């Protein structure tokens, strides 16, 4: 089993192609792989419960992490995060992608 880490840096309200990450991550998960989506920069705007953007990923069993630094820069508090989204740090991302049999895709 390969581990896939999608790094989403784009604002879903500005870049409709964030759907690419959603659809690809779900498709890879359905093929039995371990999949994480790490939200960073404007990508964390999707992490807010009020944005209602990540339900399909959460329901598919994709792990959802949001960069703490990016959240703080944008004034998003942990209690505002959508269900299934966990605050994380850049060190967690680095540790995860520095593992064998892991594919890291930046978007």
């Amino acid at each position, binding site marked *: 089993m390969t581990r896939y880490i999608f*790094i989403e*840096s784009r604002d879903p309200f500005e870049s409709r192609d964030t759907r690419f990450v959603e659809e690809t991550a779900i498709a890879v998960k359905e093929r039995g792989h371990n999949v994480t989506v790490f939200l*960073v*920069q*404007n990508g964390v705007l999707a992490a807010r419960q009020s944005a209602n953007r990540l339900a399909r990923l959460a329901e598919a069993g994709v792990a959802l992490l949001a*960069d703490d*630094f990016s959240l703080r820069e944008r004034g998003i508090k942990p209690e505002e995060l959508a269900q299934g989204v966990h605050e994380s*740090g*850049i*060190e967690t*991302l*680095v*540790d995860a*992608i*520095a*593992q*064998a049999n*892991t*594919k*890291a895709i*930046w978007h």
Partner: protein
Amino acid sequence: MNERSLTLALMDPPYESANSTTALRMISAALAQGINVNVFAYEGAVCLPLKDQAPHANPVKGTTVEEEDHPTTKAFVSSLLAIGKDSPRLTWVNCGLCVDERGASNVVDGVKRGSPADFFKMASESTNTLVIPTR
């Protein structure tokens, strides 16, 4: 446990994209975890370590250079190269053709000149590779 290493390909020029900040944070975090890092700076990213960068005052706010304490990417790259001078090691390679196109050869100490062949070699020998493209 085998030594871990990451190769990052960067393309964004300084002061234009949050990608640069995230990339520098990732390099710092990797070195802090003992992970060797290779950077292949391509296109505008070859200007990240440009020595000619200068901090500036802010006439809108009326602050001096010292008060503004403006961060430059060349200072970040220098600091990271100092942290990664031995073990873990940071290797920073600027694409030579991209440097020539931009007249960006005056870079901080420790930055090497290379080609996409270096990127291929670094990626082949690393635990993993992450490409951070421009849009």
